[in-house]
């Protein structure tokens, strides 16, 4: 409970601050660079969630503990949600700076493929009737799909050039001033906290649903 309240306060503070306190970055028209505080954290959380889902799948395949599969499934679902949000916010930014919502920039291509991969993951989950088998298959597919991600992230963007702002708005490069950096990291923390909270809820929900099904089966 206290976690939820703290998270709400923290998130609201960050949202208020990035609009009222931080100046927009130079080199971008108007206020568009403020999307940095929302787009990048969602993309980061999506990456984190997919990575966590893959690790949990590995753990499940090795130990066969049902809880690991609950974690893998919840994490993949939340990752899908955040990945979708990253796509939408990125698309809005693309409209504002490049002039169109969608132009198959390598970044857009790779994020859409990620959405497709995890879409397929959910299709697979719903198509295997046996519980045990479904968990194993989903785990295997999740690992297999994760192996294609490096190709999307590193290889495809190198074949075709990208317009994605990297150097101008990357925390590692000197292009970002101190104030922006602090609030950017604050936003990153807020989103990660939100993800952890949602993940715990989701896992709890799956556990309860599983228990209920077990009870029904016994009766």
């Amino acid at each position, binding site marked *: 409970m206290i976690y939820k309240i703290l998270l709400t306060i923290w998130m609201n503070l960050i949202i208020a601050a990035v609009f009222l306190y931080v100046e927009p970055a130079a080199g971008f028209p108007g206020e568009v660079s403020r999307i940095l505080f929302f787009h990048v954290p969602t993309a980061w959380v999506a990456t984190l969630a997919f990575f966590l889902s893959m690790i949990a799948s590995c753990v499940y*395949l090795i130990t066969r503990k049902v809880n690991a599969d609950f974690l893998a499934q919840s994490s993949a679902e939340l990752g899908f949600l955040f990945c979708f949000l990253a796509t939408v916010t990125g698309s809005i930014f693309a409209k504002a700076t490049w002039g169109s919502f969608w132009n198959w920039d390598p970044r857009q*291509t790779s994020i859409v*493929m990620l959405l*497709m*991969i995890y*879409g*397929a993951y959910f*299709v*697979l989950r719903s*198509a*295997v*009737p046996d519980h*045990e*088998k479904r968990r*194993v*298959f989903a*785990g*295997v*597919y999740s*690992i*297999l*799909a994760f*192996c*294609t991600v490096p*190709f*999307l992230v590193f*290889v*495809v963007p190198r*074949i*075709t050039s990208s317009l994605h702002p990297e150097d101008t708005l990357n925390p590692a490069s000197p292009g970002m001033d101190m104030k922006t950096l602090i609030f950017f990291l604050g936003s990153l923390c807020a989103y990660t906290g939100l993800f952890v909270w949602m993940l715990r809820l989701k896992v709890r929900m799956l556990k309860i649903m599983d228990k209920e099904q077990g009870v029904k089966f016994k009766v």
Partner: protein
Amino acid sequence: MFALTTLVAVSFSIGSFRIEESERPFLYAVLLWIILVFSALSGLSRSFVKEQEAGTMDILKLSARPQAVFLGKLFFNLTMLGALGLIIVPAFILLMGYKIKFPGCFAAIMVTGGLGLGAGTTLVAAMIAQADARGALFSALSFPLLLPLVITAIKGSERAAYGISAAGWPEVKIATAYAVIMITVSLLLFPLIWEE
């Protein structure tokens, strides 16, 4: 059969002169890979379903090591893809008037692309044989996995056919890396699926 039908349809409706000279490199590469991928998928999806339908799956599970089964299926799929490529690619070149600047590089991208196709889909075929709605599920599961490969292969064939230089063969290297990674991971994961 599907491959030939598509090829004839494409060639009939587009012909060798319908597309502007400047747009040919890209469009031809895309068309060729669309034909190849779709005709390959219809065959690849059957590789394990056949065993399931004939009822030989259980005996195979008892008599052979999972790795051996996987490699056997992989080689069968690759042979099938090779045969398909040997028919489709020359026919496409003849029918569409496809001029290729760097035949060596073009052949290499076809071979490595085919290798990647087989490597990426064999494990999925093993999974869908034990699930519902097999045909639809197979395409849904394998497209996302194959997309990076297909994009690379299209770029590669475009470069080999009309590019300025084919030095370094970057796409061939990427496709090879993809195939090697997919085969390795599949070999590790296949026993888990097989023993279910």
